[in-house]
Structures are given as structure tokens and as C-alpha cells.
């Protein structure tokens, strides 16, 4: 499975990860090699086998819908790059 530079751009956008033009060919080549390597899984007959998402095949534990956490906004915002009045500041979103 060989990745084109357009595919790198598409995947990079999905991951919100900028890939510089000079780095793109090397990434494309390395990722293509890795994908070719993992393609060998297609040789196995996995029909009738269900996916194993959790090693012990356990599903999500539930708890009562009661408030147990305290609000620690100030503590958690003390390490933010930019906050005001309890809000996180980012560059303008709406043009």
C-alpha cells in the first residue's frame, strides 16, 4: 500500500498535524513501508472471528448517575496557555 503525498495531506488534516513540504516525501516513504508490512495481516483468514477490543473481553463498567467530582477549574486552568474569565482563549474561529 503506497501512500501518495495527497494521501499524506488528507491524513495530516484528519490528525490536525502539519507536515512540512520537505518532510513529506520521507514520511510518505516510511509510512508506505509500514503499511506494506501490516498488509500481511490480509493473508490470514479471519472470517468468523470477532474483534477483541479489550484483552479480557470485559465491557464498560457503569456507576450510579450521581455527582462525585468537585469543580477544580481554577486548578486545571492554572497551567493553560491563555485563559480569561474561566474561558480558554484561541485565535478567532468565525470569520
Amino acid at each position, binding site marked *: 500500500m503506497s*501512500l501518495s503525498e495527497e*494521501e*499524506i495531506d488528507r*491524513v*495530516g488534516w*484528519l*490528525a*490536525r*498535524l*502539519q*507536515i*512540512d513540504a520537505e518532510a513529506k516525501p520521507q*514520511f510518505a516513504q*516510511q*509510512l508506505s*513501508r*509500514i*503499511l506494506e*508490512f*501490516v*498488509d*500481511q*495481516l*490480509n493473508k*490470514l483468514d*479471519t472470517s468468523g*472471528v*470477532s*474483534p*477483541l*477490543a*479489550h*484483552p*479480557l473481553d*470485559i465491557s*464498560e*463498567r457503569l*456507576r450510579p448517575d450521581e455527582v462525585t467530582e468537585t469543580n*477544580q477549574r481554577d*486548578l*486545571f*486552568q*492554572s*497551567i*493553560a*496557555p*491563555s485563559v480569561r474569565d474561566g474561558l*480558554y482563549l*484561541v*485565535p*478567532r*474561529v468565525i470569520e
Partner: protein
Amino acid sequence: MFRKTLFELSALLHRREISSAELTRIFIERAERFNPYLNAFITLSGEHALDMATIADRRLASGQAGPLTGIPIAHKDIFLTRGIKTSCASRMLDDFIAPYDATVVERLASAGMLLLGKTNMDEFAMGSSSETSFFGPVKNPWDRQRVPGGSSGGSAAAVAARLAPAATGTDTGGSIRQPAALCGITGLKPTYGRVSRWGMIAYASSLDQGGPMTQCAQDAAMLLGAMAGFDPRDATSVERPVDDYSEQLEGDLRGLKIGLPKEYFGDGLDHQVAALINSAIAEFKRLGVKCREITLPHTEHSIPAYYVIAPAECSSNLARYDGVRFGYRCKDPRDLRDLYCRSRAEGFGAEVKRRILIGTYALSAGYYDAYYLNAQRVRRMIRDDFQSAFQQVDVIAGPTSPGVAFRLAEKTSDPLAMYLSDVYTIPANLAGLPAMSIPVGRVGALPVGLQLIADYFHEGRLLNLAHRYQQVTDWHRQIPAEFAS
């Protein structure tokens, strides 16, 4: 004093032959002196440790101390430590001061252990050599031109050189066991769900487990006992009582059945490593165990399955690093798109980016079924191989790594070559089984590790086998000459 195990140090502290403050000073001095040669630590917290030592000494004097009270420990820089920088060896978290303690950190602190420092590692735990760290590579104490293994290479190097008497690590594809093997120490990855992942920076949520990295199995039993147990804050934590691992150490091995997978002894294994593994197995036979060949037919498919599943899960877990709420933010972002794309491009190293991209691809529309779901099917087949094996044997044994420590920069230009060295460790993560590595000899100066794998929640069996072996051998007591004074 710095060569003593946790078990020995505990006795000395309780008999008041040494104080916690004196002991801590010894390790602080060693860590400061030797760290420039090994780069094992990202952060040293000597002052903090001495403050805690004062409290520990009071507890020891008044008889309110437990077995681990007053002993320093190093935590892999993937565990959140409140008020102390927690970087995950990444530029993305270079300025991140953790607002809370990981459960593992909290539990070991409650047991009275003191934080000596945060150890270096592969960035975001992605790697097998501890070379991808933003803070520079870690060196193997046995040969500083070589890697200590990864991703818990800093913890392994710190214990191997006795800069700390023990450390914590995490293991997603072998990151406790492989560096333990390459550095000649003991490392254990518990059953998935045995140790809480709360406050442990996530890489691949269905594979990650934290565990002890120690001088010996007896110490690993002490640490695991304190670290393990149900935690309601971790949704994957298992509600099952913790065994008394220390009590299980001395069990009689006669009648225990060990399986040797033929797939683990094939062409890829270095013959000098194989010879040492076979010597160790002969030693087990003298202790009364019965060995037989078994087969784990889907072993070769474990690496490709892992390199779909782990990157997929990592792409999801690392989506939180967006420059908005914490961590690295690029300068003068033009707009929101630029904020995300450039913060992440500048904050993450190359290997992390590769895995995010592979993972994103494998989960994207049109590929999810063919890649991610299919890899999870292969995962069930690998798990089923082990379940069949454990019908016939109690423990599975083999080499931890196909070779000894390789040279720095030897494998960095070819990511795939690096991935292939995880062939023996990855299967236990995919299946969620407990596994450990113990030192069984050296090829020249370079340590070799034997891996033991047991069935779910049978860590006690692993520790028992390892402890009995360590009672009749002394590989685990040896340290490189350079660090012996």
C-alpha cells in the same frame, strides 16, 4: 548501601541502622553524579525527597512504618506527579506541571516511598530504545555507546546503575521487559487491568500497563503489592483482590510445567542469546520444573497487528494535545487551524507523528474495517493461542529480546527494523497477560533477559519462578564496574 535491594533496605531502615534521610542523600548524590553520563533522569527532585524522608523517619521511629517506608523510588516521566514537571519526554509537555498524582504515584507515596526523580523515556512511550526523547537519548550503563532499550530506558538505566533502588515503568509492546532485559534488571508487566492507569499518560489504552522495575523478583513483589488494585477512577481497572505476592515467592516449583514456544526459538534469535536462555531453562529443570515445546502459531502476526492497533489508539489519545488547554502552543497562531496543526507539528517528534498518521489512516473511513477491526480479529486469534497453551502448561518461557543492546543510532533511520525487535514481547500485551523479564547472563558486557508469561492474574507464579531462580544465581546482583563505587 546503594547495592542493597528494597527488601534489604527495608530491614535496615526498620532496625534504624540507617535513616531514610541518610539513605536518600546517598541516592541523590549518585543520581546527580552519574546522570550526565546516562541521561537516565529528566527531572531530579532531591529537595522534595528529603522533605518526605523527614516524615518517613518520624514514622519509622514511632513504629508506624510499612515495608516500603523511607525508600526512594524513581518514576517514569509518564506518571503524573503533582506539582512536578511531567513531560513524557516530549516538547509538547516540556512545561507541564501535573495538577494531580497518578494512582501509582499516590499509592507508592502512601506506602512511604520518596520521589527521587522522573526518568527519561521514548517520547510518549513510543519506541524500543529511549532515543526519541526530546531531552536526548538514554545510555546503557553496561556500554554507553549502546541503547538501554525502551520505552522505559531511563528507569532501567537508573536501576541498573543503582542510581535508584527501584523504579516504575510502563509497557505497551514490551517497554518494561525489553529495557529490563537490555540493562540486566527485573521488570514486570502486570495483567491488563491489575494496575490503575489513572494519571498515567495514555498511549494505547487497551495495551498500556504500569509495573515495577527492580533489582530482583522479591522487590518486584513488594512494589507490585503496593501498586496494584482496583481504582474506580480507571474504567478498565479490574475489581479483584490483590494477591500477597511476597507470600507466593517461596513456593515449591516441582511439578510446575513450562512451555517453550517453538516460534520464539527460530532463525531471528541471536545464537549467543539462545545459549543463555537454554542455560537458564536448564537451571529451572534443576529446580524441579518440567519443560515442553508448545506452539503459538500466530506469533509472527503479532507485530503487524500491534502496529495497527497501537498507532490507532495513540492517534485518538494524542488528539487532546491541541495547544488549547495545556501543553505546548505555537507562537502567534494565525487562526484555529494553524493553532492545532502547527502546535502539534512543533510539539511532537518524528516517531510520534508517524504513529499518529498510521493510526489516523487505519481508522479513517474506508479503512477502519480492513485495518483496525481486522487487526482486532487477529488479536483474538493470538489471545486464543495462549489460552490453548495454558491448558497444557503453567508458564511460558523464552527470550525477551532477539538480541542484546544495539548501538545508538543503529536503528533510527529504519522505523520498521526497530519494530521487528519487539516480536517476543508484543503478544503478551495483545492478550493482556502478565509477563516479566529477568537477567540470565551476559554476552560480553551486554545483558540478556529471559521472559516468563503466565495466565491472567497469575503474577505470583512468575514472581515465584523468578525468585527461586534468583536464589541460586546472581546475575541480578551484578552491576557495571563504572557504577560500583
